[in-house]
């Protein structure tokens, strides 16, 4: 395997691993902030101890999340050197802002939250708990601005003198941070974290009920967890819907792959599983119009006319124009100082074809098709498991509210199974988003094979296995500590 594959594997592994810890951070932060607020408002020590228990769980999870986040930041440079230069003008800014605005907030107030119970006032402590979660959420926004731009690169233009995408004006930054893809990704990711946090709290609390201990603690935690999780579920569905519309608009190939749609058209069907289809549903979901045209994989390869009447050229034509742009770029770079007239001619050719420059790096038209099977099934698992989570949260919340939950052993056991499932659900979401946009690091502008560093495959392979070993070690330790923390329990004396 070559360096491109190993670099992709390494980044995918790091990102997937990081996403094991982030959603629980986002979700638990909200759960424990609500609990501590109840403590401060109701002046009930029970809520304090409840919040403190979930904070212990939060702290173990938080550390590994931080540790893996920094790896991602470094890997942009170490493994995606060309990418870092090509997009650095736009991409570095959200990372820097994330550090300044979000990470310091998280880091500062986490320390107050965790160690400050006896050192700072009640209100300052409560503020710190909220600010830890708000910091984590703000950080998600900025990194998803960066990710959203890779999916839908707005607000920048290619500058042949510096050979990179540059911010087109100071106002263009607004386009970047209000990128609709980034906004819906933010809501989708953060609220899916609420679902994860909700499922985790509900399921662990259910385990206490199965064991017949910590009953009061467990029931109150289930109610808070179920509410957070259900609010999250609703928001995930809404933002998922707009994610679908955006994919249709900006990344039609991703949508075609997720649907396994070979040949599209108006009244495109939505596939539940292979062979079971709802006629016209995909057109409604993707364009909010029954007669909306949804291109299939073959349409995109051959070229088509979109719903606004724009003629989208075939991939072969885009590749041809992309090569013209690359050739013109090379000529321009060579002549710009010695022969300005010829350079201007080359520049004009470049400007004419620059929007397809990324396609010039592809070898054959089929390169634009992502691995359909992976994306198709990940999409189905994500939706199916997401609905299952909402159902479980609803039942757990309902029976707890009616105080019948202790008799529902089957539900408590099912809830425990939902812990691994909710993680698989979140991972599937990212697989759809990231595998679905292959081969592009930046949609239409820079394919993965041009985004890399000049390293040997052996070097990246070595670090891949190094990281794999470390990640496995940390995961085992983390799970052992979490299990021990849960077994020990909140130790609240109950009457």
């Amino acid at each position, binding site marked *: 395997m070559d360096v491109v594959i190993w670099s992709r594997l390494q980044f995918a592994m790091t990102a997937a691993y990081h996403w094991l810890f982030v959603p629980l951070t986002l979700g638990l932060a909200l759960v424990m902030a609500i609990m501590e607020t109840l403590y401060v408002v109701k002046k009930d020590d029970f809520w304090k101890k409840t919040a403190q228990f979930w904070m212990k769980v939060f702290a173990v999870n938080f550390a590994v999340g931080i540790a893996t986040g920094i790896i991602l930041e470094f890997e*942009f440079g170490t493994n995606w050197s*060309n990418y870092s230069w090509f997009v650095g003008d736009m991409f570095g800014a959200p990372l820097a802002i994330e550090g300044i605005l979000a990470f310091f907030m998280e880091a500062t107030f986490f320390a107050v939250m965790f160690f400050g119970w006896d050192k700072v006032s009640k209100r300052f402590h409560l503020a710190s708990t909220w600010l830890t979660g708000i910091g984590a959420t703000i950080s998600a926004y900025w990194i998803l601005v960066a990710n959203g731009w890779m999916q839908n690169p707005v607000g920048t233009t290619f500058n042949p003198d510096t050979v990179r995408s540059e911010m087109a004006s*100071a106002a263009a930054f607004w386009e970047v941070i209000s990128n609709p893809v980034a906004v819906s990704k933010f809501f989708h990711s953060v609220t899916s974290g609420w679902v994860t946090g909700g499922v985790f709290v509900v399921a662990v609390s259910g385990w206490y009920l199965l064991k017949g201990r910590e009953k009061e603690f467990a029931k109150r935690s289930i109610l808070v967890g179920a509410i957070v999780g259900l609010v999250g579920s609703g928001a995930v569905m809404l933002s998922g819907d707009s994610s679908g519309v955006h994919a249709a608009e900006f990344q039609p190939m991703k949508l075609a792959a997720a649907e396994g749609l070979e040949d599209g058209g108006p009244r495109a069907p939505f596939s539940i599983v292979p062979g079971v289809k709802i006629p016209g549903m995909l057109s409604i979901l993707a364009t909010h119009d029954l007669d909306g045209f949804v291109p299939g994989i073959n349409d995109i390869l051959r070229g088509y006319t979109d719903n606004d009447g724009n003629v989208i050229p075939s991939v072969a034509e885009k590749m041809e124009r992309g090569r013209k742009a690359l050739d013109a770029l090379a000529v321009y770079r060579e002549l710009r100082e010695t022969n300005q007239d010829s350079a201007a001619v080359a520049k004009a050719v470049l400007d004419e074809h620059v929007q397809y420059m990324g396609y010039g790096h592809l070898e054959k038209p089929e390169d634009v098709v992502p691995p359909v099977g992976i994306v198709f099934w990940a999409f189905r698992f994500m939706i199916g498991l997401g609905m299952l989570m909402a159902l479980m949260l609803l039942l757990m919340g309902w029976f707890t509210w009616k105080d019948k939950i202790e008799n529902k052993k089957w539900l408590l056991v099912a809830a425990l199974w939902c812990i691994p499932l909710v993680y698989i659900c979140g991972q599937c979401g990212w697989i759809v988003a990231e595998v679905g946009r292959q081969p592009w690091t930046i949609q239409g502008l820079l394919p993965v094979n041009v985004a890399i560093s*000049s390293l040997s495959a052996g070097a990246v392979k070595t670090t891949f296995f190094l990281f794999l070993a470390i990640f496995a070690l940390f995961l085992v330790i983390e799970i052992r500590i979490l299990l021990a923390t849960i077994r020990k329990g909140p130790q609240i004396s109950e009457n």
Partner: protein
Amino acid sequence: MTYTFLQNYWWILVSLLGGLLVALMFVQGANLHLGNRRLDDTRKRMILNSTGRKWELTFTTLVTFGGAFFASFPLFYSTSFGGAYWVWVLLLLTFVFQAVSYEFYAKKENLLGVKGFRVALMANGFLAPFLVGTAVGTFFTGSDFTVDKAAIADPASPVISTWGSGWHGLEALAEPHAVLLGLVLVALTALLGALYILKTVDDEPVRKQMHRTVRMVALPFVLLLLTWLVVLLLRNGFAVEADGTVVIEPHKYLHNLLQMPVVLGMVLLGIILVAYGVFLGACTPSRKGFWFAAGGSVLVVMAVFFLAGFNNTAYYPSTADLQSSLTIRNSSSSYFTLTVMSWVSLLIPFVVAYIAYAWHQMDKKKITEEEIQGAGNKY
């Protein structure tokens, strides 16, 4: 605001973040003292818990330093990170282990035992300042790379920045002057760590050991620093001419120091402050030594960055191809990006203010044996 002004402003900010990062690496320095054989396990845990309330600030400063460098001078990020691969990966690994070590340290389910994570923290305590110092050291010795922006149009080898040495960064360890700066940083952070422990821990045996440590490390630190400085001022530097051509200029950094009196002043004031802080820690019962030494460190590190980047100097020179060298003019982000980022940077004082407030609130009560033996949250 002109483009030049913005580039200078961001070099100052990156330098400031670099200075703050070094000062905050007192966390790493303090963790190095976990190896002190005269301290028992409880006392080691007091040290651990003292830095345990602060390590995330250091870590976040590192992340922000990286992010700000990426955002303002992306060609450095793509050239150095992708090229000096093993140095950055190694640095990364030590920080990754450090980040989990606090939380895992005292838990009996941690597989590697207390000793395992103590070793991880100490490894980070040495390697983090050593590698950062050595990497910054190459700002003056140069590295083996070329930059060719036209490469992206070449399907056969599209990568713009390529590294010459197959060691991918580890070759810097054979560059004595760069390594020397690594050692200077190890000694400096060890001092800062000891001074920080003196400031926050209320325990006689710990304080006695830390006074002793400050006294022991002070002299080697001064010798290392002076040697590095003298060699720096005598060596050839990488000057940038008006048309952007990079040339070798004898005694370039001495010239920089003399032509930028402000930087000379920063170096002198910084050294005096560090010396005073060390004196307080070594010879008096005062707890305030840390603040002087930390402030002085920020000034000296900023001055080092200024010497590397200002006064028409190439801050990341290439020994393979002089004209590939990075300067703050040819490696920066566009005018608009720097403008937007500059607006964002106005929030930094606000961030510093709430950090200072929270820091003050948390440090009002010193760490004692009772707290470590007590029931509250601790590492």
